């Protein structure tokens, strides 16, 4: 494994002590409670120049960093110190190996933005040590279902939540006839599965499916022959919407305005369901947007937001408990009275059956917020937020299951 240790960086450790903020803790005699959190993600390879909006360095970690400052401000009044360590992995580096030194130091609170299989492996490694993992990156539904873990919380929405949000909106508009265009990758297949389930749940009809077989056109523009095929592939399909499943962002943006009949595009491009978006300013969101821009000089992205929620959730539980014991934090966050303010109106909370954060989902196009789900009129006996994603009775995550 060449270069492994060179690639790993335990970078930018933050220790925001109370004194740094100019406060003097009231009960100075007592040693402060130290709350240590680690953020784990792979360093991003630089994007090719034609990517207009490349993932910025620090995506995810920056959200965690902002939340840590907020936790530290509250902590300064309560004699609590918060610390955040950034574990930035090389491309081929194994997160389970990378965090071993942290576990040896007794760290028990982890936030990750990792692919699903690595998230699961990390959760299992942490479980043996009684440590918690907050998944701020992976949207895979199986992590909330058959692959759920008692020490694994999800602040990233599941794909089911995202596509349910979109199909609630399509139901309200009565745009019921869908042409589904899945991409070639495994993530696209998973997104397409979620689309099919949501269509069924909210009464839309997938009138046709046309897998995208023309290559990543939006990124490699000069392929005239496949371009012609791409322009006609949807001809004659009587659909209201084209829903694309293209998580790699290779072709979804290419379809809008290039179909033979005029068709709207939604899904992974066009009108997108997301946890966070620069156009969202209601419910006090403007404050969070401003704080983030001020700190990072860039816009907050969904993974930043999801990491922000994870660190805030830990902070809120510590505030309530006046303790940082991971099991107590887990119990508090799953408790019936636990709420989180996440700037999307209704209070967020963790579903006790799969530890997925219930949260509203935004529906956005690049420069305009189109809607917010749950849409009015979608009701649930417990919480309208539970109209999004897999409900308790359908969940494959069973109590007692590791």
């Amino acid at each position, binding site marked *: 494994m060449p270069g492994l240790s060179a690639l790993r960086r335990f970078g930018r450790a933050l220790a925001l002590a109370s004194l740094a903020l100019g406060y003097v803790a009231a009960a100075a005699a007592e040693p402060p409670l130290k709350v240590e959190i680690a953020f784990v993600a792979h360093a991003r390879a630089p994007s090719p120049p034609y990517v207009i909006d490349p993932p910025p360095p620090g995506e995810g970690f920056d959200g965690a960093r902002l939340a840590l400052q*907020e936790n530290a401000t509250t902590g300064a009044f309560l004699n609590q110190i918060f610390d955040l360590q950034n574990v930035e992995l090389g491309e081929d580096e194994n997160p389970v190996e990378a965090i071993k030194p942290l576990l040896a130091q007794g760290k028990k609170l982890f936030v990750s933005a990792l692919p699903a299989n690595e998230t699961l492996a990390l959760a299992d490694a942490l479980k043996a040590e009684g440590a918690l993992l907050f998944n701020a990156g992976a949207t895979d539904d199986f992590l909330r279902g058959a692959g759920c873990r008692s020490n694994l919380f999800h602040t990233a929405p599941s794909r089911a939540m995202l596509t349910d949000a979109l199909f609630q909106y399509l139901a309200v508009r009565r745009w019921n006839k869908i042409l589904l265009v899945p991409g070639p990758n495994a993530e696209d297949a998973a997104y397409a599965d979620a689309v099919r389930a949501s269509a069924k749940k909210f009464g839309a009809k997938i009138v046709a499916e046309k897998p995208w077989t023309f290559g990543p056109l939006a990124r490699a523009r000069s392929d005239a022959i496949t371009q012609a095929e791409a322009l006609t592939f949807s001809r004659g399909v009587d659909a209201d919407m084209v829903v694309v499943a293209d998580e790699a962002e290779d072709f979804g943006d290419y379809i809008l305005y290039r179909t033979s009949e005029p068709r709207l595009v939604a899904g992974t491009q066009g009108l997108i369901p997301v946890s966070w978006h620069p156009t969202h300013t209601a419910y006090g969101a403007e404050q969070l947007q401003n704080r983030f821009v001020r700190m990072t000089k860039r816009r907050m992205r969904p993974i930043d937001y999801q990491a922000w929620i994870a660190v805030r959730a830990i902070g809120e539980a510590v505030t309530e408990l006046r303790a940082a014991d991971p099991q107590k934090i887990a119990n508090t966050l799953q408790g019936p009275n636990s709420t989180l303010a996440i700037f999307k109106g209704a209070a967020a909370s963790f579903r006790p059956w799969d530890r997925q954060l219930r949260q509203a989902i935004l529906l956005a196009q690049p420069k305009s917020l189109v809607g917010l789900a749950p849409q009015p009129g979608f009701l649930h006996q417990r919480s309208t937020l539970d109209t999004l994603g897999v409900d308790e009775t359908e969940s494959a995550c069973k109590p007692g299951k590791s």
Partner: protein
Amino acid sequence: MNALRLALLACLLASPAGATRLYVTNEKSNDITVIDSDTLAVTQTVKAGRRPRGVGVSPDGKLLYVCASDEDGVQVFDTTSMKLLRTLSSGPDPEQFVMNAAGDLLYIANEDNAQVTVLDVKKNQVVANVPVGVEPEGMTLSPDGSVLVNTSETTNMAHFIDAKTFARIDNVLVDKRPRYALFTPDGSKLWVSSEVGGTVSVIDAKTRQILKKLRFDVPGLTREEVQPVGMRVTADGKTVFVALGPANRVAVVDAETFEIRKYILVGQRVWHMALTPDEKYLFTANGNSNDVTVIDVAALKAIKSIPVGQAPLGVAASPN
């Protein structure tokens, strides 16, 4: 704004009763709607700065103060001419404020920078910046003027601050997203509304212990729809009105027994409220239905809704 409201009452008692004017800030149409409390009609609409939110009248009734949140200033209007006199430099993103009884100091919550700015309004000079929690919002002053309270929405605390030295006396943890704070007229209790927590905490002002947490179980609504924001208390200290946001209702609470006497249906997304000095009417600013509901306080009934600008948030009453 108890100190101020009491000052207004004193003012009213000293002079023959006349029509009260209500000033409503409209966040999205960037204007102020003026309503006459006798005719319950709009008399004037005045252009304001961008995103007007917090609003209050000087103790002598002559000046109207409006937070222009997106312009980082507090605008001062002459209440007779409704002309803009000047803009005070408040610090970034002012949202709510309280004024002292003398009418010379404004205590402003600057939501974007985690501090309370104390501003001398005559000199247009910042007297002090007091660091508080993240996203300061609710501001109130004890009736004797000695204790300033600020709530911080993300830190979830009510900060008790000495109004003379600006030293922090205590910080009380409350439920999520505390938005508004109110002293009872005798100064013995502080009420704090928590928008996301869905509760109101009643705090003993001396011991700073939470005496009671009120929940609002509105029939037919889920817990998440109940988001307490603005509050007002009657001068006798017996009744507190709590605006419940997207629940579209005002809760009427017995301030002694904490019993919830009634839920009054108002417009959509009710934010802040104002009582007329004679306490005949309560006006509520309804952010999503772009109107103001007038509640008959004696009958505890909504009697009229008055269309105003877009996204009304704040409302203040003047004695003249």
